């Protein structure tokens, strides 16, 4: 049997890793079954009866939001590139202020199940709802694809499954588990999976951080200095030349790479409040005030988590060293697992590996329930059946959609295995920022905003983002592209946000001003009063 991680060193034990992961699955399945005795009504299935408290939902939001890419990717980027990894992580946190100040409470007061409920409230129902549902499905699919493709790579890294069919099998297992969580648990079960995962992930990262800090006598400056010494001692000249304490190692190479980073940062900070699976979480609490408390908890936990990754990244550079990290099968993604082994041996490595894997499960379950709710509620019940369906029927359609999506995600995940997943995550944020956020903000804060503005902004944001990505170096023209042997890239940046986000805002304004102000003023009044006061907001269902 080949050794795990660094070639030649016997690090980790796949059997223990798998055992701990199986234990996680068993515990969460048990909780999901217990939590979901009643999932017949749409309120129960889509919003967990709006019965979660703010703190519970805040923990679940952080569980939904902190993907394996955040944990392994950011800790690894800091370990290998230093400061630029930290620079990247901050956008994910600051973005929550957009959600807190501008979106969460008003959205909670106005909507029922999906993002489209809010966007189509005072505009023409059918076209706007269709556009919002299209964007919901697009963002969820890109995000889902990134997670599933990442699962293959993570498995190679954590469970020592190197063969293609082995990775495909594990992706299939992830997909099936996710389908089971969503079918059985609905929103309530999914939320509990996210809560358990968040506690494990943040708790694990916190313990590792404490261990690193104590190794260095609680002196953060010492960790940084040791990290720089270790990187400077790398046998790879390009790595050894890096100044890991200052920006520039990853994004500073050229003007294009700098602009590319600024474009990415823009998508991160504006994309979070447009992610449908994040928005849908606000419907699981009973009031706007609880939605506010959710975000406060999420900001505290997510902020703490990125501070942990800062210490873990530099700690991995100092204690494991860049050569061992880059030499292991997972490359820079293996920084955190290798650090866990360094700190706590086989058992801590197994725990961290299982947590990273559980992270993927929880995130894909959250995405699937969002996408299937949007399909059942927006497309099936509203657009196809014109509300002539029972809630039971909506839930049934949503369950079928979840299965279809799950199978779809398994197949795509297997096909996309080994692809550059960072760009898929960035794409999901870019689409959310360009296609969703302008319309969310305009419809909540700009009375004159109308249907044409919404449609131009939503479709314009979606199409421009995707077109620019297709003709970017992320897809063709370089050895690391999705299609390395083709070259049709004319757009220089892999992150289109810097163009597509301003464009979508502009389209919203132009579309609105070039069409008559013919929306129903009474409906606009109702939306504004409801959004600010919570009058008529969906209540928690009685238990």
């Amino acid at each position: 049997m080949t050794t795990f991680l660094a070639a030649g060193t016997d690090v980790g034990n796949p059997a223990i890793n798998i055992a701990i992961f199986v234990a996680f699955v068993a515990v969460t399945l048990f909780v999901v079954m217990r939590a979901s005795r009643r999932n017949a009504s749409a309120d129960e299935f889509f919003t967990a009866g709006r019965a979660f408290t703010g703190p519970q939902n805040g923990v679940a939001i952080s569980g939904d939001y902190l993907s394996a890419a955040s944990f392994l990717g950011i800790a690894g980027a800091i370990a290998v590139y230093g400061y630029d990894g930290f620079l990247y992580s901050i956008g994910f946190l600051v973005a929550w202020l957009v959600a807190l100040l501008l979106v969460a409470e008003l959205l909670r007061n106005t909507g029922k199940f999906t993002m489209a409920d809010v966007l189509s409230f005072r505009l023409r129902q059918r076209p706007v709802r269709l556009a919002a549902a299209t964007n919901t499905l697009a963002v969820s699919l890109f995000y889902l694809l990134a997670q599933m493709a990442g699962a293959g790579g993570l498995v190679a890294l954590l469970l020592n499954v190197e063969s293609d069919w082995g990775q495909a099998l594990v992706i299939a297992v992830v997909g099936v588990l996710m389908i089971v969580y969503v079918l059985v648990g609905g929103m309530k079960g999914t939320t509990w999976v996210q809560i358990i995962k968040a506690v494990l992930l943040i708790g694990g990262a916190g313990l590792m951080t404490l261990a690193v800090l104590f190794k260095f006598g609680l002196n953060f400056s010492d960790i940084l200095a040791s990290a720089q010494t270790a990187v400077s001692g790398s046998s790879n000249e390009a790595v050894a030349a890096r100044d890991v304490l200052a920006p520039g190692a990853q994004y500073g190479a050229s003007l294009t790479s700098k602009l590319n980073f600024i474009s990415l940062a823009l998508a991160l900070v504006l994309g979070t409040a447009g992610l449908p699976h994040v928005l849908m979480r606000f419907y699981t609490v009973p009031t706007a005030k609880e939605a506010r408390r959710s975000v406060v908890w999420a900001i505290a936990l997510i902020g703490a988590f990125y501070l942990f990754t800062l210490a873990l990244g530099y700690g991995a550079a100092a204690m494991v060293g860049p050569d061992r990290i880059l030499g292991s099968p997972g490359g820079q993604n293996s920084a955190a697992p290798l650090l866990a082994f360094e700190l706590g041996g086989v058992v801590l490595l197994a725990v961290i590996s299982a947590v990273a894997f559980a992270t993927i499960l929880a995130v894909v379950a959250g995405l699937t329930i969002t996408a299937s709710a949007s399909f059942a509620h927006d497309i099936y019940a509203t657009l196809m059946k014109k509300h002539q369906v029972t809630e039971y029927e909506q839930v049934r359609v949503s369950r079928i959609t979840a299965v279809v999506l799950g199978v779809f995600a398994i197949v795509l995940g297997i096909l996309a295995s080994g692809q550059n997943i960072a760009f898929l995550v960035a794409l999901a944020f870019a689409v959310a920022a360009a296609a969703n956020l302008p319309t969310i903000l305009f419809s909540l804060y700009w009375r004159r905003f109308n249907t044409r503005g919404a449609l131009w902004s939503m479709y314009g944001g979606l199409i421009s983002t995707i077109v620019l990505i297709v003709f970017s170096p992320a897809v063709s023209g370089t050895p690391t592209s999705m299609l390395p042997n083709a070259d049709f890239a004319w757009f220089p940046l892999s992150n289109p946000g810097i163009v597509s986000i301003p464009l979508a805002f502009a389209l919203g304004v132009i579309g609105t001003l070039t069409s008559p102000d013919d929306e129903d003023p009474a409906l606009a009044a109702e939306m504004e009063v409801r959004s600010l006061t919570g009058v008529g907001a969906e209540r928690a269902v009685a238990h």
Partner: protein
Amino acid sequence: MSEPHLATQSTIPRERYVAVQSSPEFQELRSRLRRFVFPMSAAFLVWYALYVVLGAFAHDFMAIPVWGAINVGMLIGLGQFATTFLITGLYVRFANREIDPRAERIRAELEGGR
């Protein structure tokens, strides 16, 4: 508007929303909220943009050592965390004091006067 609409499920007649919207109490609520969240959003977005631009273009400035291995860049980065937590705290205090009681009064009036 022949299509069924979320709003039509409400039991409060439309005209009442229009009346409430133009009431001074509601206008006060609305403008207080906007006077807080718009400038605050602009402030944190500008502060974050400044950080990102410095991170992309001002490598030497960010590398100026301050204490031990901790440099200007690290302090500004940690400063982003500090301001995010600070703005969160300020907003919660503002919303609890200024927004919730006003929203509550208007809601009680609307729902009670049915």
